[in-house]
C-alpha cells in the first residue's frame, strides 16, 4: 500500500453511523446500570447524599427485617425459576416435537393459537386468571365439579401455600410458546439425510427423538434455559398485576423484582429508599451475571455444535 494512504484520516461516516446507537445505549442503559451500582454505596441523611460504603449491603444481608425479605424473595424466585424449567420447557419441547412431524395437518394453526398467550400483557393474563380462579365467580370450582373433583378446589391465589406455585404455572401457561417456537425451529433445521440414515438403521419414532433429535437440539435447550433464567430473575409484572406490590398473601409471592420495586419506590406505609433499591438491583445484577457466566463459560463452550 502506498504510504500516503495509510495516513490516519478520521472517517467521519463511521462515527456518524455509530454515534446515535452508541450514545442512546450508553446514556440510557450502560451509564444508569453503573450509576445504580454506585448509588448503592450511598445513603441519604438530612436530604444530603452521603457515601457509606457497603453499609446498605450490610443492612440488606444483616438486618433481620431486610434480610428476611431478601432471602424470602430470592427463595421464591428460585422456586419460580425451577417451576419454569421443569414444566414450561418440557411442555414446550414436547409440543415442538409433535408439531415438527412432517405430515401433520393444521400445524401452523396450532402453532399460532398456542403462541397467543405469549403476546398478551401481564395485566391481562394476571387479571384473567385471577378472575377464573376466583371463588366468587366459580369457573374453576364449577369445572372441577363437572369432573367430580370439586374437593380439590381451593382459592389458590389466596393461600400462602399455593399462591406462588399457581402464579408460576400461570406464567408457564403464558410463555410456553417461546420454547415451543425455538425448539420447533431447531428441529426443522435438522437435515433430512440424518433422519433418513437413522431410519435405515431402524431408529424411528420415539427412539429417533431421544437418540438423534434431542442431542442435536441441546444447544437450543441451553439458550432457552438462560433466557428463562434472565427473564425469571427480573420478573415483576405478573406478580404486580395479580397480587399487587405487597406480593400477598403475606409476601408468599414476593420475588426480587417486586421486592426491589417496594424498596425503591415505596408502597403504602413503606417509604421509598432509592439507595436500598440500588443495593437490591446490584444483587440482582450479580445473580444474573453469575447465571449468564455459568451458561457462557460452563455450558455453551462445552456443548458440541453440529454444522450441517
Amino acid at each position, binding site marked *: 500500500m502506498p504510504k500516503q494512504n495509510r495516513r490516519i484520516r478520521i*472517517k467521519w*461516516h*463511521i462515527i456518524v*453511523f*455509530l454515534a*446515535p*446507537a*452508541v450514545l*442512546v*445505549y450508553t*446514556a*440510557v*442503559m*450502560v*451509564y*444508569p*446500570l453503573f*450509576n*445504580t451500582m454506585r448509588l448503592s454505596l450511598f445513603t441519604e441523611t438530612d436530604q444530603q447524599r452521603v457515601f457509606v460504603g457497603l453499609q446498605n449491603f450490610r443492612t440488606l444481608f444483616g438486618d433481620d427485617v431486610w434480610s428476611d425479605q431478601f432471602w424470602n424473595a430470592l427463595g421464591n424466585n428460585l422456586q419460580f425459576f425451577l417451576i419454569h424449567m421443569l414444566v414450561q420447557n418440557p411442555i414446550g419441547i414436547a*409440543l415442538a416435537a*409433535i408439531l415438527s412431524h412432517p405430515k*401433520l395437518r393444521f400445524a*401452523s394453526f*396450532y*402453532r399460532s393459537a*398456542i*403462541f*397467543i*398467550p405469549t*403476546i*398478551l*400483557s401481564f*395485566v*391481562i393474563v394476571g*387479571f*384473567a386468571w385471577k*378472575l377464573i380462579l376466583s371463588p366468587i*365467580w*366459580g*369457573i374453576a370450582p*364449577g369445572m372441577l365439579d363437572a369432573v367430580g373433583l370439586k374437593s380439590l378446589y381451593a382459592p389458590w391465589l389466596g393461600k400462602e401455600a399455593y399462591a406462588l406455585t399457581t402464579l408460576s404455572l400461570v406464567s408457564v*401457561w403464558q410463555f*410456553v410458546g417461546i420454547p415451543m*417456537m*425455538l425448539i*420447533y*425451529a431447531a428441529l426443522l433445521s435438522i437435515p433430512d439425510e440424518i433422519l433418513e440414515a437413522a431410519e435405515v438403521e431402524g431408529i424411528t*419414532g420415539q427412539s429417533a427423538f431421544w437418540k438423534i433429535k434431542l442431542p442435536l437440539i441441546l444447544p437450543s435447550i441451553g*439458550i432457552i434455559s*438462560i433466557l428463562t433464567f434472565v427473564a425469571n430473575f*427480573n420478573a*415483576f*409484572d405478573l406478580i404486580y*398485576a395479580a397480587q399487587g406490590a405487597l406480593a400477598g398473601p403475606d409476601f408468599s409471592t414476593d420475588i426480587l*423484582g417486586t421486592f426491589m*420495586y417496594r424498596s425503591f419506590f415505596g408502597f403504602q406505609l413503606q417509604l421509598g429508599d*432509592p439507595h436500598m433499591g*440500588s443495593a437490591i*438491583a446490584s444483587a440482582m*445484577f450479580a445473580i444474573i451475571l453469575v447465571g449468564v457466566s455459568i451458561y457462557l463459560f460452563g455450558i455453551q463452550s462445552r456443548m458440541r455444535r453440529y454444522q450441517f
Partner: protein
Amino acid sequence: MSAARQNRLNTFAAHGALILYTLIALFPVFVIVINSFKTRKAIFREPLVLPNADSFSMIGYETVLKQGDFFLYLQNSIIVTVVSLFFILLFGAMAAFALAEYRFKGNTLMGLYLALGIMIPIRIGTVAILELMVQTGLVNTLWALILVYTAQGLPLAVFILSEFMKQVSDDLKNAGRIDGLSEYRIFFRLVLPLVRPAMATVAVFNMIPIWNDLWFPLILAPAEEVKTLTLGSQVFIGQFVTDWNAVLSALSLAILPVMGLYVIFSRQLIRGITSGAVK
C-alpha cells in the same frame, strides 16, 4: 397393515394433544371475551355460556368508555411503540452497517460492547434511569419511555442486522462507490432496502414487549395524560375491581389491539423466530 394402523393412532394422539393444549391456551381469553358481553347476572349464573338475546349487555363497555380515557391511552401506546421502533430500526441499522461494513480499530470491541445489553436486562438500572429522567425533566413524558425502549431494543437489533448486512454483496456497494455515491447514500439507497426482511423481524420482536411493558410506564410515566394502554388498564381494573362488567370489558378492550397486531404480523413473527434470527 399394523404399521399403518400404528401410524394413524399416532396422528390421532398428536392431534389430541395439540387440540387439548390449544384449548388450554385459548380458554381464558375466550371466557373473558364472551362474558364481557353479558349482564352481571348472567356472568355469574352461566359463565361458560355464550351471550344470547336475554343475557346480552354492553353495560361494561359503556362504563369503560365513560370512565377511562382509553382512546388517549391507546394513542400513547401507539406513539411510544411506533417511535421507539423507528429509532431502534434507524439507529440499529446504522450501527450494524458500520460494524459489518468497515474495518476500523475497535470494531470487535464495539460489537461486544453493544452486544452486552442482549443478556443484561435494562430494568436493573431503573433507579438511576429514574434519576436521569428527573434531572432532564423527561419524567411523565412519552420521551422517557421512548428513550428507554430504544436503548433496550438496540443491542439485539444491531446483532441481528449486522449478521444480515454481512451478506449484502460487496460488488453492489463497490459499484455504487464507483458511481460516486457517498457512504450515506450507499447505506440508505442500496443496503437498507435489501435488509428489509430482517428489519421487519427486529420490529416484530420489539413491538410486543414494548406494547405490553408495565414496569417503565409505572415508574417513569404514571401521569394520567401519558399513561400507556397497559398501565391504564391496570389502574382502571384496580379501581373497578368489584364492577365485573367493567373489568371484563376493559380486559377485552386491552386484548383487542394486541390480537390485531398479532393477526397482522404473526407470519412475520413466526418466520423470524424459525429462521434462526435469534441463534
